[in-house]
């Protein structure tokens, strides 16, 4: 009997001696400072909400959010110098630099820090759009009271009284926190928690539009239900992979996968389910159905934040899980991901042609761009020492930078083209925008050219990097499909430009609202970045290259 007991205990790897030993964990506060700064910002935001007088709240909240993001950006720069070691700017450096922190829950390495920087910059720009109050007569673009019925007396009262929801800022900060933790997670459970932290505030923010509130609430409900489904898939996948490998940590999963410790069924099923959860967040076909509805219904500032931020976070996590955790099984998942990439590009580009609404158009554009990024991912080129070819990781990161700026800029312009009922969604009403406001139409045309991937815009450099990474990974069919679908999509983007400049306006034509300095700054910055990254992509590309590979 004692032998049996001993065997049972040994099997569980627990003996009576080591049961009560609970040591204090080591937390690297310095390395985690960007995440902690955003956490503190969100909490201070909630306290401001609780304590500050109503009149002062909006200004105070936007100031807190912006200062917090700037502090986190400074901390990110410090972390990159302090924890990543010396960066050589000569050719490709495939070193994985950085370390796991917080007892292996998170990993702060080159890609993590690069994505943190990207997320913080996108959040900063989006917060300026959140804080825009010049377009609705001194009120923000968010509903005054989300709890009252759309179109009812309560809504009018709230508008008359100038009531605003200032919770949007802390909510966005919590979402940003989740976005930062998501690609930095070193184990699947942390990743799941981060997924929820980033999703829940976004579901809520989607339902808060001031105009077209029913559409906005519909978007929130759809996003919530589909998002909850995809989270459940993700969680089930985690459970199956745990069943296969006996661990949540990506490194341990990698060991299990590389050594093929058991039958592959559990692993394959788990990988498939995890990829459903992640591909949903990047809106890849066939999990793209929510994207147009949500992008259209959500307040445009939220759409911009979500389109850029969620994509960065989700692609970071996708790359980390599949390159680090499932790297040993890449011949199982790569063919499937190639199919998904081609489907995403084709569906995105073809359905894009039929779009008549600006925000839906940008949503399908987002889907097509996910497809382009997926080509580099499915190429899975990890580089070889001594050559300066672009790896999949750095190509994806560079593309995310390019795409994020252009898309935030495009949504910022979409907030300015208005009529009595708010933003003008229908593309036909955009006809003749070039006469009304040549500068604005010109900048929008620039973003369209960047989306299309015309040389001398950032979009061209982005496409070039992802296709070259895919090519290096011998995924040439994807490159062919990518170039062809780019051409199809380019037809549509050029048609929008022609519509703006050469078509006769419908009736009086669209009105271009004059924004405050906030939105103007957003448009100026994003347009400048789109041009600069197209002409001198070197510095940012070097940063992405020098971020190296994932720490395992």
């Amino acid at each position: 009997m004692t032998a049996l007991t001993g065997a049972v205990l040994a099997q569980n790897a627990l003996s009576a001696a080591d049961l009560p030993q609970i040591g204090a964990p080591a937390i690297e506060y310095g390395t985690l400072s960007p995440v902690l700064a955003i956490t503190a910002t969100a909490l201070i935001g909630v306290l401001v909400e609780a304590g500050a007088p109503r009149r002062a709240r909006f200004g105070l909240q936007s100031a807190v959010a912006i200062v917090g993001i700037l502090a986190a950006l400074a901390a990110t720069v410090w972390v990159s110098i302090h924890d990543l070691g010396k960066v050589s700017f000569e050719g490709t450096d495939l070193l994985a630099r950085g370390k796991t922190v917080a007892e292996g829950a998170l990993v702060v390495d080159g890609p993590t820090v690069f994505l943190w920087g990207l997320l913080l910059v996108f959040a900063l720009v989006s917060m300026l759009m959140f804080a825009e109050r010049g377009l609705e007569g001194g009120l923000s673009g968010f509903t005054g009271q989300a709890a009252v019925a759309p179109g009812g007396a309560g809504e009018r009262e709230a508008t008359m009284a100038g009531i605003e929801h200032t919770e949007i800022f802390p909510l966005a900060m919590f979402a940003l926190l989740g976005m930062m933790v998501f690609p930095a997670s070193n184990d699947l459970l942390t990743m799941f928690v981060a997924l929820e932290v980033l999703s829940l505030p976004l579901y809520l923010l989607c339902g808060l539009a001031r105009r077209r509130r029913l559409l906005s609430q519909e978007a929130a409900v759809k996003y919530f239900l589909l998002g909850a489904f995809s989270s459940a898939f993700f969680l089930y996948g985690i459970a199956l992979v745990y069943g296969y490998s006996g661990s949540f940590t990506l490194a341990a999963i990698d060991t299990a996968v590389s050594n093929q410790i058991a039958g592959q069924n559990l692993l394959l099923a788990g990988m498939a389910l995890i990829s459903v959860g992640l591909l949903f967040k990047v809106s890849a076909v066939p999990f793209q159905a929510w994207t147009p509805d949500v992008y259209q219904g959500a307040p445009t500032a939220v759409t911009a934040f979500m389109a850029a931020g969620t994509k960065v976070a989700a692609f970071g996590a996708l790359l980390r899980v599949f390159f680090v955790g499932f790297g040993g099984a890449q011949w199982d998942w790569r063919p499937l991901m190639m199919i998904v990439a081609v489907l995403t590009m084709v569906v995105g580009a073809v359905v894009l042609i039929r779009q008549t609404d600006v925000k839906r158009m940008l949503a399908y554009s987002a889907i097509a761009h996910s497809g382009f990024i997926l080509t580099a991912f499915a190429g899975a080129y990890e580089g070889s020492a001594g050559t300066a070819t672009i790896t999949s990781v750095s190509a994806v990161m560079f593309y995310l930078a390019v795409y994020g700026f252009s898309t935030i800029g495009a949504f910022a312009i979409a907030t300015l083209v208005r009529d009595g009922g708010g933003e003008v969604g229908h593309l036909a009403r955009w006809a003749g925008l070039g006469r009304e406001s040549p500068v604005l139409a010109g900048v929008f045309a620039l973003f369209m050219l960047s989306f299309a991937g015309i040389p001398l815009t950032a979009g061209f450099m982005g496409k070039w990097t992802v296709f070259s990474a895919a090519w290096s990974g011998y995924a040439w069919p994807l490159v062919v499909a990518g170039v062809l679908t780019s051409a199809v999509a380019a037809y549509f983007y050029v048609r929008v430009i022609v519509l703006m400049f050469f078509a006769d306006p419908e009736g009086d034509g669209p009105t271009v609202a004059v924004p405050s300095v906030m939105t103007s700054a957003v448009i100026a910055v994003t347009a400048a970045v789109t041009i600069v990254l197209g002409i001198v992509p070197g510095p940012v590309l070097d940063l992405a290259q020098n971020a190296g590979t994932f720490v395992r």
Partner: protein
Amino acid sequence: MNVYAPILVLGIIAAAFAVLSVGIAPFTGPKRYNRAKLDSYECGIEPTPQPAGGGRVSVKYFITAMLFIVFDIEIIFLYPFAVAFDQLGWFGLIEMVIFIGTVFVAYAYVWRRGGLEWD
């Protein structure tokens, strides 16, 4: 299986005790009904008036439930901390104070925005 036999026995005793005491109560207990006793039980407070037909629950309970989650999460972390209190030392104490501080941020928000007022 011998290792688990005491647990099984304990389970049987516990179940038998529960079934026996519930089963015996109707026969041995005194029955003196009054109005308060027949009302639905709501944690000792006055029952909330409900509309005719009765089937619907006031939306106010939603906030109560949300608030409950705040403290629920807190206790989930407090309990293991209490068990390992002496081994974690100052680190554990400071981390728990920070943690409870962040929990009270949510509580302060609910309190200031009138979540604790019933009407």
